[in-house]
């Protein structure tokens, strides 16, 4: 009984995690040293999210050396996750009033824009979009982080497929 309760607890809590999942992409070879830039964080939440993005990108093994910022020499990747829409005011307020116990459905949309530069010149721009339904409860796993992971994985696969960045 205790074991089942523990298992259920772990499953429920891990379902609530807002952290990005590891990408479903593993690189066979690493790119030459390059840099990645993200928009300036507007809050501590943004900082945390950007740390997670860097972490999952490194986890793919695609980057031998990942610098920060935009560089006029070498390869640079600009990532921008702005745009899209979240829960909105009404579902958020209702969710807060019901202490996230009553499922209030809402639609969301997440976007990812990736722009690749070589020596400061644009090589290619990538754009991805994911959307769907979810609900503001603590017992339904969040789908937004999964969408963000999927888009990052797709970007990494496209970069690998296009072979615009040389391998080490």
């Amino acid at each position, binding site marked *: 009984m205790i074991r089942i309760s523990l298992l259920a607890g772990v499953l429920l809590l891990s379902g609530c995690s807002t952290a990005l999942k590891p990408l479903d992409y593993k690189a066979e070879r690493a790119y030459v*040293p390059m*840099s*990645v*830039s*993200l928009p300036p964080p507007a809050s501590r939440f943004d900082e945390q999210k*950007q*740390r997670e993005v*860097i972490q999952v990108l490194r986890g793919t093994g695609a980057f031998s*050396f*990942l*610098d*920060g*910022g*935009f*560089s*006029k*020499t*070498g390869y640079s990747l600009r990532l921008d996750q702005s745009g899209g829409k979240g829960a909105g005011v009404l579902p958020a307020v209702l969710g807060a009033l019901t202490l996230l116990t009553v499922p209030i459905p809402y639609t969301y949309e997440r976007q990812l824009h990736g722009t690749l530069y070589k020596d400061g010149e644009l090589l290619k721009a990538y754009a991805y979009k994911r959307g769907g339904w979810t609900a503001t409860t603590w017992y339904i796993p969040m789908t937004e982080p999964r969408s963000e992971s999927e888009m990052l994985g797709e970007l990494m696969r496209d970069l690998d497929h296009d072979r615009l960045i040389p391998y080490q």
Partner: protein
Amino acid sequence: MNRCMTLGAVALLAGCASTNTLPERTLPDGKDYLKPIHVMVDDPENAAQIRNQLRETGVFRSVESGMGKPGDYSVLIRSNVQRDMPPFPVVLLSAATLFLLPLSVSIDTTTEFSLQQDGKSLKQYSYRNVTHKYSWLLDGIGGMQQENTTRIARAFAQDVQRDGVLPVESAQ
């Protein structure tokens, strides 16, 4: 009474000072700049800060980002940062006393610099600095990270200047 207050004030103020294992390096004034370097840091979040700290040393003509063109000098930097906080119950206890109970915080950084030209390694440098501090209500841990890495950047700049691996850029 006065002696007690003085002793208390000294203890509090002395407790606020942070300690570093890497000695502070003094960089001589009036020397010519060294050739420009292109710096790449394998840490996207702190890359800009490390480049700025190298600029602040005033040793290099310029510190650019990226790999640089053929013939340019580049520096590849890899850091390993370990932060040490007290056990969580102690942090809770400090929070319960409105942070009057000091917390022992330390940052242990090991940084490796690889000075290269056209992909050929000229020299490797490695530094370790452990910054330790007791943090409490009136003295937070802000600035500890910067202090920790500034010492490393200055040590690197001084060693490069002393070794003469990087040519001096003669005054125009």
